[in-house]
């Protein structure tokens, strides 16, 4: 019974990955250069969504401030470039280190609370980062900062080439997916998934769940910081608007749309989200009205997102 439905899910996953891998060839064939921009954005946001899914889907930590890490990562490219430091390894290192420290510091406070408090506090901390960058006039403040030169790695990896940048992002997505798969299936991941179901039970089994959740929270933040560094390179521009709390809301929606708590779901969610956004915004000036209503309908009627639809079962019905 479960075999044929499983293959549909696997089939879509493979199809999606092959399609993503062939985007530059497709661009060459059709001559539509816009496609690669869309695909790059999709892949970068997919990394962010996969990292959010690690805490939201597997650990039920509903972080409403995940976009802050995108911003931190992007500024970790922008600010060194502003001082004419172009070393890409350094950029990535700074992006991930600062994200990790921020996640650790805020996680220590956020994870002491649960439920709604957790949602609102993660949101508030992200807003704090937002306003901090708004008030930094040196780095453009409200108007943002143009990144003149992309990160430099070596002679072979030249990010100024759109195809190279795309493949770097795509390879990163594959690595991150593999990493998250390993994490989720490890003993550590079992504990995290255990706390989603019943935290008290895990505690009485002797696990210090706070520590597990904190580490998970830091890993997710660090990965998203990395995605932010890619995003900064891609857009060549950063502004605080990138980490507005509505961006975090969009990230959550992408994860839920694709299927929270499934490995590949967020990638599907991001793709559908971006395609829909592209399609609707070209169609009607007030497309966000349709989009908002679509979001509400997804929440009300589509349990478990695209992933559960592909695998033919409702994920959340036995979850809560």
């Amino acid at each position: 019974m479960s075999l044929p439905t499983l293959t549909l899910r696997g089939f879509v996953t493979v199809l999606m990955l092959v399609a993503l891998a062939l985007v530059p060839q497709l661009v060459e064939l059709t001559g539509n250069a816009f496609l690669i921009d869309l695909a790059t954005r999709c892949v970068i946001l997919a990394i962010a969504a996969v990292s959010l899914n690690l805490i939201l889907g597997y650990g039920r930590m509903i972080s409403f401030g995940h976009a802050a890490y995108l911003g931190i990562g992007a500024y970790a490219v922008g600010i060194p470039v502003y001082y004419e430091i172009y070393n890409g390894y350094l950029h990535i290192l700074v992006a991930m280190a600062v994200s990790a420290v921020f996640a650790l510091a805020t996680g220590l406070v956020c994870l002491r609370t649960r439920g709604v408090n957790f949602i609102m506090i993660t949101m508030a901390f992200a807003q704090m980062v937002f306003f901090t960058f708004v008030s930094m006039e040196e780095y453009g403040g409200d108007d943002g900062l143009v990144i003149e030169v992309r990160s430099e790695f070596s002679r072979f990896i030249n990010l100024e080439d759109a195809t190279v940048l795309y493949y770097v992002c795509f390879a990163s997505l594959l690595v991150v997916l593999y990493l998250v798969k390993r994490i989720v299936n490890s003993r550590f991941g079992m504990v995290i998934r255990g706390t989603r179901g019943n935290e008290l039970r895990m505690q009485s089994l002797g696990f210090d769940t706070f520590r597990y959740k904190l580490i998970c929270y830091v890993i997710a933040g660090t990965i998203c910081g990395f995605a932010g560094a890619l995003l900064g390179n891609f857009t060549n521009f950063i502004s605080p608007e990138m980490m507005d709390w509505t961006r975090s809301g969009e990230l959550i929606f992408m994860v839920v749309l694709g299927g929270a708590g499934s490995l590949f779901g967020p990638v599907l969610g991001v793709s559908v989200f971006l395609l829909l956004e592209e399609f609707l915004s070209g169609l009607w000036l007030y497309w966000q009205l349709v989009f908002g209503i679509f979001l509400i309908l997804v929440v009300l009627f589509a349990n478990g997102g695209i992933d559960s639809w592909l695998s033919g079962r409702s994920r959340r019905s036995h979850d809560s």
Partner: protein
Amino acid sequence: MDWTLLTVQFLNGLQLGILLFLLASGLTLIFGIMDVVNLAHGSLYMAGAFLCATFTQWFDSFFLGLLAALPAVAIIGLLVERIVIRRLYQRDHLDHVLATFGLILAFDALTQMIWGPDGQVIPLPAWLDGQVMLTADIVLPTYRLAIITTGLLVAVGLFVLVTQTRLGMRIRAGATNRTMISALGINIGMLFSIVFGIGAVLAGLAGMMIAPITEASIGMGNQIIIVAFVVIVIGGIGSIKGAFIAAILVGLIDTMGRSYLDALFKLFMSVQNAETSAPAISAMLIYILMAVILAVRPTGLFGPRGH
């Protein structure tokens, strides 16, 4: 020390605090009783401002415009509750934030469809537009005093409503144990609607009162709503008293921080360092306050104890 500036900044802080209270009290009531996180509360704030702008134009009077806009916002709130929020009561918080986030997108787009992308200016009547001479030096804008007075009156009214009336008793009972009061024969669906309506009116009123100063603009609620969340987290979810104290505290700290932190920093660091770091730090102040309070009391100042 410049006493005029200090008084004006103090009043500005108080005014921000009052607005935050109007938003936060509705949020905290809705959350306390229905266990629903309503991100779209800021949209009701925006709806209030825009409706008030239009009605003020129609009646050619700010006061009449305000009076007409209040029931209009209540109706919008009740419709939102009936159509969307009601279906969310049995769901978890993730569904709440997502669905109400969808509401925000829809509200922003709808407002832009009706009123266009530009802000709406609300002209003040002459009797509110003047200034009050407190002493020879200290001159205060009348309208700000009016906002503060109105807000305080509403706060007192709300306090009386919740602590002294039968409806308030039911609201408090509902916050404590939903199942029990519906078992006692109280129409809990009706109670929820009433509370949501009250919250909508309070948020709308806040939007109407600020619009003459800032003008009504698309997405105006999306920033202040986060600060309102900070307020209810600090005050403790479900507590009106906590929301009031935290709102005033946050309003004052935010306003005072922005105007006086650089002067404070200049006492112990170079002028240049003070001028670059003060704006960043003052933007972070209320969040630092929140973090400190949560580190000491995870449920906020007046939050529910025991878990």
